[in-house]
């Protein structure tokens, strides 16, 4: 007579038992051939089921499914229902720039210095990232290693810009003469030589939503702000 029920037996087979419980079951199995036979039945069932469906995983992907994914990867998602209008920033001038060259930020900023430094306890942009934030306009950045997403005024005043690169993406806001990085997330990655624009990271969009006052700058407003050195006020 044992206290090992069916649920414990199958949890043993599924590898779900902690060490202590597994040993308890093992001891009961050693003493009870009937129980051991039931466990063996459950183990055979698992092997038979997984073996039955395993060949499907090894098959080549059907052409229709592959084509569906490949077609989708080529298309910049133009329609994004139920998102604010300004999120379609990728459409206008950026269509021409929809392929972003896959240059790592590190290569251009001279390696050791990197795109971000910590000064007085705050992350600040430097090197290539700082100059992209200073000078690059979202409407004209074909081939740029770092791509500017949105330029916008934050609540309480001051300019912020979202950016996207191969190794890092994020949001930075103007503080004095520099750019304080508000958020940093891994970039588009090194997996491919180029990638689609307009695939804004959801985390960055959340940060922009939290910071933004009104609508993001259009091309003219952005250019004017850049000409004034991103100082506050219109």
């Amino acid at each position, binding site marked *: 007579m044992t206290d090992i029920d*069916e649920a414990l037996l199958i949890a043993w087979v599924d590898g779900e038992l902690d060490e202590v419980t597994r040993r308890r079951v093992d001891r009961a199995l050693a003493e009870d051939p009937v129980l051991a036979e039931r466990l063996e039945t459950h183990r055979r069932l698992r092997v038979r089921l*997984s073996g039955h469906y395993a060949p499907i995983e090894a098959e080549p992907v059907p052409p229709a499914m592959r084509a569906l994914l490949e077609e989708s990867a080529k298309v910049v998602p133009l329609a994004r229902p139920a998102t604010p209008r300004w999120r379609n920033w990728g459409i206008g001038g950026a269509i021409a720039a929809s392929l972003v060259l896959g240059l790592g930020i590190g290569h251009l900023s001279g390696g050791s210095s990197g795109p971000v430094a910590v000064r007085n306890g705050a992350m600040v942009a430097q090197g290539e990232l700082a100059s992209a934030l200073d000078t690059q306009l979202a409407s004209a950045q074909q081939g740029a290693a770092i791509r500017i997403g949105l330029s916008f005024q934050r609540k309480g005043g001051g300019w912020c810009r979202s950016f996207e690169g191969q190794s890092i993406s994020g949001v930075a806001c103007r503080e004095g003469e520099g750019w304080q990085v508000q958020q940093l997330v891994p970039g588009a990655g090194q997996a491919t030589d180029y990638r689609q624009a307009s695939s804004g990271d959801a985390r960055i969009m959340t940060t922009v939503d939290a910071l933004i006052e009104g609508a993001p700058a259009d091309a003219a407003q952005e250019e004017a702000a850049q000409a004034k050195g991103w100082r506050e006020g219109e």
Partner: protein
Amino acid sequence: MSFESDLLAILPRLRRFAASLSRDRADGDDLCQAALERALKAREQWQPGTRLDSWMYRIMRNLWIDEARSRQRAARTFAPEEAGEHVGHAGDRDVEAHVMLSDVDRAMHALPDEQREAIALVLVEGLSYKEAAEVLGVPMGTLTSRLVRGRGALIEMLGEAA
């Protein structure tokens, strides 16, 4: 890595899951294709940093449940006099496909939906109980009792040797 190439990487497993839910391979691939289309449309809802495979399992499973329900409704609406003969089956297609199906396919197909999906996620896809319970949106205890009942039924259908 793009969203699409991430999907492509897990596609072999998604097809396997679809096949284990569906009555035959063709239905499985239809389900898988529909799940991909749904995922591409709903891509904004996926949270980067969370598991894409779990998200896809959930999409596929929900499509499958919806489809199973509408099939049952159609069966009740259009063929009430046959209901007694074909409970849980889709009529004469069943007879045609019967020849092609193995013992395992038939046994899986005979399980109630909630047992079949639990068995598919844990025994075929190799998910942990915690992961499977999350995909199905049920407590762990519910999942394990479905696994116990589903396995009992399979062993009975497939014979003691399983």
